[in-house]
């Protein structure tokens, strides 16, 4: 990496004052960058809001951490003891109703396939979260890649300064044996955007360049002494990080660039902001974005907790679908809503619902989904799947197919073990348009 190429408006001025990321970016844009990646091609879409037809499918996973109650969201059973106090409302899918606390999502139902027949065996959070991220049951220290890492791995055609897998509000599950470069980049606080991309205090571009030079010298010495390829790969990661610092695409993480009306529409809370950031990242070409909404582990006071959560989910999810559609991004962006399992139909003495993996719901939207249907069904109290059960392997095979990946493709782990994207699943064709 040539340190003399560091772009910045602050360069050469020791009276530079605050050198915020924003200035860095604006300066960078005007300063005629000589970065290796033609980011401006991707930049234009973000600026102009137009979407040229993209060569690849993208995905947003809305991850409902803790296990969302299917009965109180997408598979309501009003009028039964198990169904609880919530009523149900009509959606834009004829004959399909969902919880009364999702009115705006109901308006977007025509974009969705509501899967009411998810079924698995993992009723423990850690294991269920692993299963529903990777498609596999946990197996000791062997680490399966999560869906985002698969997408990052398969998207070799994406040339982008930004990470290929971004996880907002939570850490997701890692890339497993696929390796570091497919690990999620985690944003824990969407208000702050990307961390550590601005120069620390009392640093400017020229001083940063000196640091880079000093670093490069040390790396060179060590490389010479050890002859190890690992040193070169560390250099590569540093180089990527440095490009990212100076890339205008970093602004995809900056919600301040959106109007206050837009921010309000998604919701001024972490999940709303996360969804808005997800839309910006999709526009910038990031192939996989996960946004977490935590708090679904409703063992106590299920209904109050869920009403609160749906108040966050409803504007964010509906605005996301609407916004993606208006920007012509929805056809190529698969949106998944799910958690690790459902909740017991029986309402406990604590007015809560406990873990329930036998029957639960997930939602697929956009991205080539045969939308406007409820797929599968549970019995009258949401306890058993009675039609078109969706197993985890089949679910992952379907999602992989929708994302343009071959579910049967095998990738060898470093130990030579063949691993497929889906654990011997078959795509469900009636979910694919």
């Amino acid at each position, binding site marked *: 990496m040539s340190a003399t190429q560091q772009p910045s408006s602050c360069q050469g001025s*020791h009276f530079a*004052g*605050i050198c*915020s990321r924003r200035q860095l970016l604006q300066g960078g844009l005007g300063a005629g960058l000589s970065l290796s990646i033609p980011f401006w091609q991707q930049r234009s879409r973000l600026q102009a809001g137009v979407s040229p037809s993209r060569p690849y499918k993208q995905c947003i996973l809305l991850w409902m951490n803790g296990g969302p109650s299917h009965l109180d969201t997408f598979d309501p059973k009003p009028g039964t003891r198990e169904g609880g106090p919530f009523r149900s409302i009509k959606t834009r899918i004829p004959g399909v109703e969902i919880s009364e606390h999702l009115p705006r999502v109901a308006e977007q139902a025509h974009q969705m396939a509501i899967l009411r027949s998810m079924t698995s065996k993992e009723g*423990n959070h*850690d*294991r269920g979260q692993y299963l529903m991220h990777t498609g596999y*049951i*946990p*197996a*000791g*220290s*062997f*680490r399966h890649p999560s869906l985002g890492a698969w997408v990052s791995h398969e998207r070799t055609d994406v040339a982008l300064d930004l990470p290929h897998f971004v*996880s907002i509000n939570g*850490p997701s*599950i*890692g890339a497993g044996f696929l390796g*570091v470069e497919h*690990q*999620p*980049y*985690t944003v824990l606080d969407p208000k702050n955007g990307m*961390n*550590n*991309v*601005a*120069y*620390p*205090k*009392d*640093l*400017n571009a*020229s*001083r940063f360049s*000196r*640091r880079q*030079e*000093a*670093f490069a*010298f*040390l*790396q060179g*010495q*060590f490389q010479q*002494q*050890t*002859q190890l390829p*690992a040193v070169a790969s*560390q250099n590569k990661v*540093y180089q*990527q990080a*440095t490009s*990212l610092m100076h890339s205008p695409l970093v602004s995809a993480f900056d919600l301040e660039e959106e109007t206050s009306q837009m921010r309000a529409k998604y919701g001024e809370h972490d999940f709303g902001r996360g969804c808005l950031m997800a839309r910006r990242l999709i526009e910038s070409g990031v192939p996989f974005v996960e946004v977490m909404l935590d708090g679904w582990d409703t063992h106590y006071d299920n209904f109050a907790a869920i009403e609160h959560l749906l108040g966050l989910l409803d504007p964010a999810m509906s605005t996301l679908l609407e916004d993606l559609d208006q920007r012509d991004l929805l056809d190529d962006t698969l949106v998944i809503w799910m958690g690790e399992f459902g909740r017991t139909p029986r309402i*406990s*003495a*604590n007015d809560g619902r*406990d*873990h329930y993996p036998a029957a639960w719901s997930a939602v697929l939207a956009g991205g080539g989904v045969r939308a406007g249907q409820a797929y599968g069904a549970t019995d009258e109290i949401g306890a058993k799947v009675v039609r078109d059960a969706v197993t985890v392997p089949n679910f992952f095979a379907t999602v992989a197919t929708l994302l343009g990946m071959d579910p049967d493709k095998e990738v060898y782990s470093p*130990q030579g073990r063949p691993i497929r994207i889906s654990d011997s699943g078959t795509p469900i064709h009636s979910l694919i348009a």
Partner: protein
Amino acid sequence: MLGLLTHSKSATRLARSRCLGLAIVSCLGGMISISLAAEVPSVVAEIDQHLREAWQNAELEPAPPASEEAFLRRIHLDLTGKLPTPEAICSFQQDPSSDKRAEKIEELLASEAYAEHWAGYWNTQLMGRLFRSAIIDKDAFRDWLQESFAENRSWEEITTELLTAEGWNTLRTPQGARRDPDDWEARYNPATNFFLRHFQSIPELTGKTSELFLGVRIQCAQCHDHPSESWKQADFNAFAANFTKTWPNSIDGIYVTGLLRMDTKDRWFSPPTTGRLEQLFGSYAEYASVDPRTLDGKSVSKWQSRRVSLADWITSKNNPYFAKAYVNRMWGLLLGRGLVEPIDDLRPGNPAEMPELFERLAEDFKDHDHDVRHLFRVICQSEAYQLACAETSQNEGNLWSAYPLKPLDVEVSLNIVLQATEGSGLLDRITQGKSDLIRTAVLRQTVVALGTDEMAEVGGESLTIAGALTAMNGPLVSGLTRKTEGLYLDRLLEEVTSDRERIEALYLQTLSREPTASEMSHWLQFIHAPRQVVKTKSEEPTGFWARIQTARSRMSVSAGIRNAPDDADFKQLIDMAETAADFREVAGKMKNNADAGLYVTALEDFAAKEPFRILATYSSGDTPEAQAYEDLFWALLNSSEFNHNH
């Protein structure tokens, strides 16, 4: 000024004078090194013989022996998770003894840092890094592990205790508890916390047990039979059944604050899994009625606790996996790659790379009654451990013909950053002595920022873009490499005037070696190159009035929390808290366990952010020279040489 050197003006000179004139005093945590008899286990020669034959057969030219400095850094990092101090490096160099490497191994194995480091490693494996739970006394468990390593309890003893422990998990009384158990202190056993960590998922407990103590992954058999695997679903279920008659009970209701006191007991019957208990014991149901067996298919004794029978079978010298699992793991950790890879996959279809060496090591470990320190001695004195970390295209490090480049655990990375910068004192001051809290917080932040799973190993090998950004621009490294009072660089620049000596001291402090001549001349040039002092404006309010303003509004927040009505929403109070004073007020408002949970989470988050915020406000030195040294120090801490064991 903190830590003023009294013997000499120069850090290096100090080390020298000690080496030359004074009795050799080890600087490891102030421990005086008594001359420990160095011991070379007889098996080492056999191991070396196996290695040499293997290299010869594969026509590999092994790397040259590691230099003294390289060995010293390596052994310190492996055994204690810390860097050797400059003083230790110097005295090691000056030590004329021919078996000083063996002596050093003994010295470190006897140190407190060894027990702390390996307790930390096993704590991560057994419990994971970041979980929070009201039924687990994490500190008590970790202390128990540390004590076990400090007393060199055998691996057999440690394993048996982990698998069979009964009794109360903690000695802490929760707030609001109505009474203490009668047998509380008599039946206190912190090792039960391992069981408590996993019993809510019997498959998890079963999997952890087989993976950590036997090096086999029977979890794969949990859901389906696989034609090529040795164990079927039925074997998994029968193995899992060993845990189903052990379950905990508590004397504390849920409306207490703090840790619940849990009593783990082996019983004659399985727990009820209906109603409210389904949540807790639901995973027992599937295995409770299965006939318990060990992995060789034998039924366990019906006349004693199932777990005792299981532990007897696991730790028996006839068990084909137990010794090998431990030996393989240690070989892998110390030499970069297990004899069998992955290190916990010893199934028959996955042969060892050097089967005879593996057998011999395992036999020797059994012959020494699973002596943990003995195995360290053997591996660390083997030729493989003594080679330089220098691959050639000819050997590519195959068959351990070169020492590997090993990533560091996050704990060790944090240790050595704090050690090199002398940042611990400063962090202690910022957090008013609560640096443990910070440690957890920093680890949490690192692990989460790297996007890694809780239980997985985290290290430099998994350097991500986020990790590189944090190392480059994050407040920890960029803050602690400043010339700020109380930090190493300030001390160095104030007390040492010669640039050569400064550069030499920086190298010893970080890379544990002296710079080469060409490195020295490069850095002299770097330091003396003309540069302008860089000062950026702080974004924090700095003026006098701004500070007064902030202080005023802060006081009203604290007061607001203090005066909040009793029925105020606890979550809202927590959201208001922004300073340590606010949190003290919030602590007084906790009403139940749920509040305590929210409080601990919020306080940890606060503890994670606050010191970083303060560190980020530290200014750079005022002179071009000071800033040049900061840049050099920063580069050293970012370098691959610093961030690996090699």
